[in-house]
């Protein structure tokens, strides 16, 4: 048992920390773009390329695809630092599409996509959800017909974030309507410039853009298929387990800023506030430990399904509580937004109070994840 990183790992963490510290302009530019809601802009791409040059976007990948062949824990260290400094901790390409391509892709797919993902040149967007397929993902209807030398795609995706700036759609489509629903799903990589695709914006009330994506007689080459036909659902589930690693660096930073504010404003002598802050500290510590537990399991090559779900639920619910507690500590001024006169800490917690709702829904709702914990983690019967 060891709750700390090894000396080499600590040294590496320090190196990553110093990198971000030495790039205040890029970080600030990134945050501006990211919190502006539009996603990746020029500053984000510039930062990703810098990270790519260091091979830090994909440190666990083989060297020939742009990785460093490092153990999993190094990836988590980078994610924690990214989360701490810029809030974003993973790209779809690096965290979800890439690992599946690495495992199940053809040699051509690996050579074509992986090095560019590693260099921070391309991004993917997730094409899972549809109007009738949210939590019940297996119900997706977008059709992919095998036309001999190409696939023909028709249908609609919804809530597909990042599609307006990503180059590739990581698309789940129905290739068969026979047998159980989840057995007829296949995964494709689609160039978003392909004729017949149209993307229209959807804005959340915290100002984040996501999209509807329409496929109208879109022809894609047979080589777009990832892995085996009909296996898409399994790949998605495996990749989801990876995506549920939730770093807590961003929350730790918020907490540090909050603590500083409390000390400076003199509110720290109020016994009620002391209790609230201490409770947040405890919950953030539990978040950190849940994450370490997932990292510890993944370092051994185990995919910790229930543990990753528990971490995702607890961390996202803590974020909401954190924002709520802080907004209430600020009192009436807690409602003031980013650009308002009299706001506190630049309205950051007001923003997070809204934005944290997304986290409770994306990547599996808290309810769906509790089902998984109960049924797969604890063995409760389904019926």
């Amino acid at each position: 048992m060891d709750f700390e990183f090894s000396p080499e790992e600590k040294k590496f963490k320090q190196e990553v920390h110093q990198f971000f510290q030495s790039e205040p302009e890029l970080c600030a530019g990134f945050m501006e773009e990211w919190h502006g809601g539009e996603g990746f802009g020029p500053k984000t791409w510039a930062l990703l390329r810098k990270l790519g040059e260091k091979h830090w976007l994909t440190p666990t990948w083989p060297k020939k695809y742009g990785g460093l062949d490092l153990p999993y824990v190094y990836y988590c260290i980078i994610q924690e630092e990214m989360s701490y400094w810029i809030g974003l901790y993973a790209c779809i390409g690096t965290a979800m599409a890439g690992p599946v391509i690495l495992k199940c892709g053809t040699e051509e797919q690996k050579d074509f996509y992986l090095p560019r993902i590693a260099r921070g040149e391309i991004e993917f967007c997730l094409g899972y959800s549809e109007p009738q397929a949210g939590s019940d993902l297996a119900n997706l209807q977008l059709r992919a017909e095998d036309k001999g030398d190409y696939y023909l795609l028709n249908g609609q995706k919804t809530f597909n974030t990042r599609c307006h700036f990503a180059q590739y759609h990581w698309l789940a489509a129905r290739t068969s309507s026979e047998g159980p629903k989840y057995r007829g799903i296949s995964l494709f990589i689609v160039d978003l410039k392909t004729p017949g695709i149209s993307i229209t914006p959807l804005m959340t009330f915290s100002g984040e853009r996501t999209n509807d994506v329409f496929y109208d007689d879109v022809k894609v080459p047979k080589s777009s298929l990832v892995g085996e036909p009909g296996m898409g659902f399994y790949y998605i589930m495996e990749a989801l387990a990876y995506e549920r690693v939730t770093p807590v660096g961003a929350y730790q930073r918020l907490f540090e800023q909050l603590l500083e504010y409390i000390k400076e404003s003199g509110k720290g002598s109020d016994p009620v506030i002391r209790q609230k802050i201490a409770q947040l500290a405890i919950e953030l510590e539990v978040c950190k430990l849940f994450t370490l537990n997932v990292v510890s399991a993944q370092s051994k090559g185990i995919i910790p399904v229930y543990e990753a779900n528990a971490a995702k639920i607890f961390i996202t619910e803590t974020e909401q509580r954190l924002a709520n507690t802080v907004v209430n500590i600020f009192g009436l001024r807690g409602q003031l937004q980013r650009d308002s006169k009299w706001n506190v800490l630049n309205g950051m917690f007001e923003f997070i109070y809204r934005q944290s709702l997304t986290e409770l829904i994306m990547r599996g709702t808290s309810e769906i994840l509790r089902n998984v914990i109960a049924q797969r983690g604890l063995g409760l019967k389904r019926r």
Partner: protein
Amino acid sequence: MNLDLSEEQEMLKKTARDFLEQECPRSLVREMEQGEKGYSPELWRKMAELGWMGLVFPEEYSGMSGNFVDLIILLGEMGRALVPGPFIPTVVSSGLPIFHHGTEEQKGNFLPEIASGELIMTLALTEPSTRFDESGTEAKAQHQFTNYSISGTKLFVPYAYVADWIICVARAEEGITLFLVPAKSPGINLTVLKTIASDKQFEVVFDDVKVPTANVLGKVGDGWKIIKQIEEWSALAWCGYEVGSLQRVLEMTVSYANERIQFERPIGSFQVIQHKCADMLMDIDGARFLTYQAAWKVSQGLAASMEISMAKAWTGEASRRVCLSGHQIHAGIGLFTDYDMELYFRRAKAMELAFGEGDFHREIIAQQLGL
């Protein structure tokens, strides 16, 4: 970074679980609630034979040189089986401070006897104010030639009736001081308190109890530093015990939910029940990780005050939530004393209160954060 137990630790855990499943059935736990002593001397002896009382002491004192993580593992298994008795008061609240602050002579006298199971000890700290801070100690210790005379009223002294020695905390002229007092000294008066967990906590009145100056533990007037350590170690020990208890509560609850049929289906297939169980699991995992992290820090000699307070605040409150859900899912049957749920529910409250509940520990955390 690795949260796994070592092979030896896995062995310790397995041995303890197998042994206690055999030797400490819930019927024994209930019997001990009724009896006067509150523990089974036979079980105590067997636990000592396994080396448990000496687990954390070095070999020179007949111990096994284990660390605090080992202790937490063992306590988890004891909590799972609800082992009644003065283990924490003897080993953690008394043995550890003697080991860290006792004279060579005191260590030589007490530790091997604790390790062999011959000696039961307890701590007389809390007073009617029930404060855990320094101001809570009003008992007086007056220096008279080669003796001290101790007078005062102590509450919530665990297992005082079966203890051979009591560590009594009192105010000497120089300040707070710890005294090693033979439990059968003249002037000591015991009254058992009727507690929620029937766990043999006592009022102990010291009326002009004479103790030789050689029985001071640590330095005269400098006792509060030791008390803070004892409070931390003991709080953490209770967390370890409770984590084991809660794990058992969850297992009982899940298996009951899978067996109990209503509306032609196992109640465990109802989502509201599933989600309660998922929340129980998260509460327990949180408690376990916080407890192990704190224990690991202690074992490495690192500062752990904040981590211990986090563990205690969370575990105490989680234990209430977990036991409540367990009860709700067992419903009617869980309320009866031929079912185990209520044993865990009552003990969870005792544990939550011992060595500080959530608000108390959150205040410590606030101080540690620099507020």
